[in-house]
């Protein structure tokens, strides 16, 4: 075989060559893709990733067609092309679908597709969870979109401000579609985010420290953490609004102690980070493409990482800039105005870092490079108008006008769609037998760039001339007609460009698991190594940011099997789990293969939410049962017993089992607890917010449940904790009493559930009613959150109990228990805090108030 270079730090000859016969066959067999239509049961990240991104792109085209309909309607004043209600549904769906069904899924899909290859992993850590998220999104999104054809789509605008979207002013089912459909898709986005975080932090190639990680992985990591903290706010908002619509709990009804502005705070606390959630991965893509097209490493790598983190932080501090006109006192607006401007700085750093990289090398004017240049120009303009609307006096004119429409399209289309089109063109050869056509790509770029600017540049002026957004018609005498006509013409040029781009894909993209065109650009990152259904043949040790540039011959070595894990050590799918910061190998993780359970679970979950929307309760319940059964089937085999230590080459022997804080599953549960915590924090914010707005509805001592009523719930929670503790002790025993352990787990979980029930009963007994006022709604809304978390504990607790009975939970095979214990401990803490909040806070403020 080929001589292998000797390097002190590089464990190049991890595995001896030549590799034994049959090793490759076994690897291929373990990773074999299901054939024919059964491909739908596949979980490989490359397959699911391609489905995922294709679906997202399809929604982009559908929502784009809605955009064209909008433009047709507005082409001339007083147009009657679309009826009013249809138009209102169309603009609502255009925004909603673009944001929730295209932008976030598209970047998440890019992560699923690219990250394992880029990080040197064989797959993401939870392949079935990723596939579940995709199927849930596909089914939910398709049904949601189709409501348009039945005239029952939501029509409240994509930010769904109540009271317009409350039961009184939107009695139809449209708003429910939005709340349940989008709420459900957000949950799928969170599932994807958890997978991405664990994937980036725990499944990198050996030696790939955080400082050597590709910028795209950095951006996806921050993206995923932002989802974890931002999405719960809007999920809470949708829960509260749906409770208000369905059961008349007045969270947002001002006359009954609610406040419409609460929705705006919750929505924009999600909505503003959302913009950066979409933009960061796109910026990460640009940071990968620019070095590849210039042939030199990214200049200012560290500055860019700091900039990405800074964007993540800042973006949570400026949601109020969407609310400058709501009458919030000017003093506090100054802070948000400053924060809104500050967020421009990290973007400036990135722009100049890309320019510095271009200055260092020689930028080749390929199609991806053209889209990047287009992005730079358009996004810079969008950033500049962003600084304008960050100024309160200017925003008071620009807000809710076409100026803002122009601004947001410059930022989002320029900042996300251009990089995405660059990325599709750039990475296509990594997955397709042949690259996309440069000639068609140039045409597409030219049309899209010209069309975009012709469509959206005039809108800045249209807005300042007084045209508000979301109007289905306008009078001729305002002087808006010719501007609108120009915008409409531009939008069709843009659409023609997208059509050429799609044609290019259809004509040239040929998916290939084993023989992609490969590294046609001469790029430096790992995804350009020879890729197969199983990812890399062997996983190299990494000691630089551009391994392909620094380690010539790497591709050949990797494919010959000269590095770590050149085959399958346990006969199943597996990947190396490494330490989060230094990237040192810790254990070999076994991955799930194809299956149908997660598909059924996704269909069942989607069916439950969607059927509930149209109030078909029985079929909805059946779907829920199907989903739960499917999940149990799916999870039952997810914790295989240890296969002992295995040799992954280079004298490195790794365990095949991990549990507790070291394991990937525990990390996922820890992140899930962060999601729950963020949801709960959003609730605390809502509780305190409504108290600040109308404190008089908080009852004094007499109207509260007596303090003694908390004794029973507290006792139940403590007993539940004790059961957990006892179970942990029991689990250490050599001879495990299976039935005893199962009983403890089941009993403990049910005790926690009983605590929630007892407390709600006490509130009811004291005469607190959710319909009565904002306070009552909050008390029971709080109950809903507690039921939610305790249901999870009960479900997993019973699952663990069943595993104990089946002998699948032992001292050595205890990952399920450790994960449960983490969730359980979090839930107990949240419930104890909840008792203190709902019983303590009213007493605290009652004492402070003159009675």
């Amino acid at each position: 075989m080929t001589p292998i270079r000797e390097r002190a730090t590089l464990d190049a000859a991890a595995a001896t060559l030549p590799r034994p016969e049959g090793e490759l066959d076994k690897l291929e067999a373990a990773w074999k893709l299901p054939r024919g239509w059964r491909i739908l049961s596949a979980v490989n990240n490359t397959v699911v990733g391609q489905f995922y991104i294709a679906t997202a792109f399809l929604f982009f085209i559908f929502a784009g067609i809605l955009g064209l309909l909008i433009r047709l309607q507005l082409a001339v004043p007083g147009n009657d092309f679309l009826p009013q209600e249809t138009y209102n549904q169309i603009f609502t769906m255009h925004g909603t679908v673009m944001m929730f069904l295209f932008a976030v899924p598209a970047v998440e899909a890019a992560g699923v597709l690219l990250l394992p290859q880029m990080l040197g992993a064989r797959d993401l850590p939870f392949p079935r969870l990723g596939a579940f998220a995709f199927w849930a999104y596909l089914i939910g999104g398709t049904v949601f979109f189709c409501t348009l054809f039945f005239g029952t789509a939501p029509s409240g605008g994509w930010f769904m401000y109540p009271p317009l979207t409350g039961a009184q002013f939107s009695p139809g089912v449209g708003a429910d579609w939005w709340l349940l459909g989008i709420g459900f898709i957000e949950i799928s986005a969170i599932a994807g985010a958890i997978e991405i975080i664990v994937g980036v932090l725990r499944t990198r190639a050996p030696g790939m420290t955080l400082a050597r990680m590709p910028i795209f992985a950095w951006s996806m990591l921050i993206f995923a953490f932002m989802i974890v903290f931002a999405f719960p706010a809007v999920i809470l908002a949708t829960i509260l609004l749906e409770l208000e619509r369905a059961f008349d709990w007045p969270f947002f009804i001002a006359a009954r102690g609610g406040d419409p502005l609460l929705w705006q705070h919750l929505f924009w606390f999600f909505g503003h980070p959302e913009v950066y959630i979409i933009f960061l991965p796109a910026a990460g893509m640009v940071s990968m493409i620019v070095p590849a097209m210039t042939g030199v490493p990214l200049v200012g790598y560290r500055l860019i990482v700091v900039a990405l983190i800074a964007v993540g932080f800042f973006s949570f501090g400026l949601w109020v800039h969407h609310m400058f006109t709501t009458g919030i006192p000017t003093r506090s607006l100054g802070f948000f105005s400053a924060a809104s401007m500050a967020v421009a700085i990290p973007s400036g750093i990135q722009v100049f870092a890309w320019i510095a990289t271009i200055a260092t090398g020689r930028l080749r004017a390929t199609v991806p490079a053209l889209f990047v240049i287009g992005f730079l120009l358009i996004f810079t303009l969008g950033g500049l108008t962003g600084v304008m609307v960050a100024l309160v006096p200017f925003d008071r004119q620009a807000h809710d006008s076409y100026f803002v429409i122009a601004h947001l399209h410059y930022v989002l289309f320029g900042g996300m769609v251009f990089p995405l089109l660059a990325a599709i063109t750039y990475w296509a050869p990594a997955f397709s037998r042949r690259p996309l056509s440069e000639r068609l790509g140039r045409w597409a770029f030219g049309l899209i760039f010209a069309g975009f600017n012709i469509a959206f540049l005039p809108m800045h002026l249209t807005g300042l001339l007084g045209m508000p957004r979301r109007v289905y018609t306008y009078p001729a005498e305002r002087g808006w007609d010719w501007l609108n006509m120009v915008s409409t013409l531009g939008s069709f040029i843009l659409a023609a460009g997208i059509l050429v781009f799609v044609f290019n894909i259809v004509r040239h993209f040929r998916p290939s698991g084993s023989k992609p065109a490969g590294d046609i650009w001469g790029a430096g990152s790992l995804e350009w190594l020879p890729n197969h259904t199983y990812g890399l043949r062997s996983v190299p040790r990494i000691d630089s940011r551009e391994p392909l540039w620094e380690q010539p011959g790497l591709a050949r070595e990797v494919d010959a099997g000269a590095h770590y894990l050149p085959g399958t050590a346990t006969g199943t799918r597996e990947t190396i789990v490494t330490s989060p910061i230094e990237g040192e190998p810790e254990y070999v993780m076994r991955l799930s293969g194809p299956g149908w359970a997660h598909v059924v679970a996704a269909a069942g979950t989607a069916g439950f939410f969607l059927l509930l929307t149209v109030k078909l309760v029985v079929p909805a319940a059946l779907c829920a049962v199907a989903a739960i059964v499917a999940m149990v089937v799916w999870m039952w085999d997810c914790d295989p017993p240890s296969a002992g230590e295995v040799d992954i080459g280079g004298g490195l022997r790794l365990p095949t089992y991990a549990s507790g804080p070291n394991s990937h599953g525990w990390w996922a549960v820890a992140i899930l607890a962060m999601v729950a915590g963020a949801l709960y924090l959003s609730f605390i914010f809502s509780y305190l917010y409504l108290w600040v707005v109308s404190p008089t509805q908080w009852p004094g001592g007499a109207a509260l449940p007596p303090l003694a009523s908390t004794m029973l719930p507290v006792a139940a929670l403590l007993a539940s904790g004790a059961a957990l503790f006892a179970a942990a002790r029991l689990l250490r025993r050599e001879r495990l009493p299976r039935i005893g352990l199962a009983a403890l787990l089941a009993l403990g979980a049910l005790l926690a559930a009983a605590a929630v029930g007892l407390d709600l009963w006490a509130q009811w007994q004291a005469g607190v009613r959710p319909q009565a006022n904002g306070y009552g709604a909050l008390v029971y809304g709080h109950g809903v959150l507690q039921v939610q978390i305790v249901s999870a504990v009960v479900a997993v607790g019973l699952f663990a109990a069943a595993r104990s009975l089946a002998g699948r939970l032992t001292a050595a095979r205890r990952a399920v228990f450790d994960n449960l214990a983490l969730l359980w401990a979090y839930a107990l803490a949240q419930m104890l805090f909840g008792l203190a909040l709902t019983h303590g806070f009213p007493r605290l403020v009652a004492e402070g108030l003159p009675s």
Partner: protein
Amino acid sequence: MRRLLPLLLALPLTACEGSQSALSPHGDEASRVALLSWILFAGAAAIFALVVGALLLAWRGPERARAALAQERAIRLGGLVFPVVTLTLLLGYGVWQMRDAGAGEQQPELRIDLVGEQWWWRVAYHAPDGRAVADANQIRIPVGREVEIRLSSADVIHSFWVPSLGGKTDMIPGRTNRQRLRAERPGIYAGQCAEYCGGPHALMSFEVVAMPPAEFDTWLAGRAQPREAPATEEQRRGQEAFMAAGCGSCHAIDGTAATGTIGPDLSRFGERRLLAAGALRNGPAEVARFIADTQGPKPGNLMPSFRNLDDAERAAIATYLTGLK
């Protein structure tokens, strides 16, 4: 766009009656913001040129320029120092501008209550003698005096926006927001609901009529006087038909038996240039047609069509209403 703007400006500047443009300011706040806008546009154009220039130099420029741009120092300078300095200056200017944008400290010279309704504007003046004067979809203000508009909503969120006079302020159920306006010269300034409020949100307009102060005072005092009986026979018949058809259960006309408060007050209907909150021009023929078919010109509005009335009755009602001043 920045280069085109001055050219395009010729257009908005020519529109004087019914102007709805932030770029042709006729009020205090609008003038300040228009100036700020031009500063921002000029600055943005300069920065955009700078970025494009840097990009071109980095790509195809002379070696020395490329070497300079390739440094991390260039990133710090262009991406950190420069924005921090310019943004800080800009923020200072913005905050300084904000100081008098909101409700001022001193008492306003005039208060007008404005309630957003799906999909029209309820207006209430307070006459010097303390009596309330109701109107709808048209606001009269005296030129040169500071007017405080108290904004609230009867149903969903609306937003008050008269671009030629100032920025917008939302009208939110459960809250009362305030916005001050001062018109610099007499004229008619168009406004429109800026927060999507469902259905015919696009057809929720109004006009601000800025009058010389003396004229305004006379007008307001006159509105508080008892109303005279209809002058012509046609108007009298119109009034009868109006009352007989039950219009008074939703609409009020002061001095008559019509005291409804669900729909717009019609006491000064004849003074309005627009009908149905801007969906139509106001005039006897349009009013008669609108009564027969309210949903055609303004789909979704809450007034039913009165097809049971005959043409003559509708014409008489229209004559009566457009004669109300």
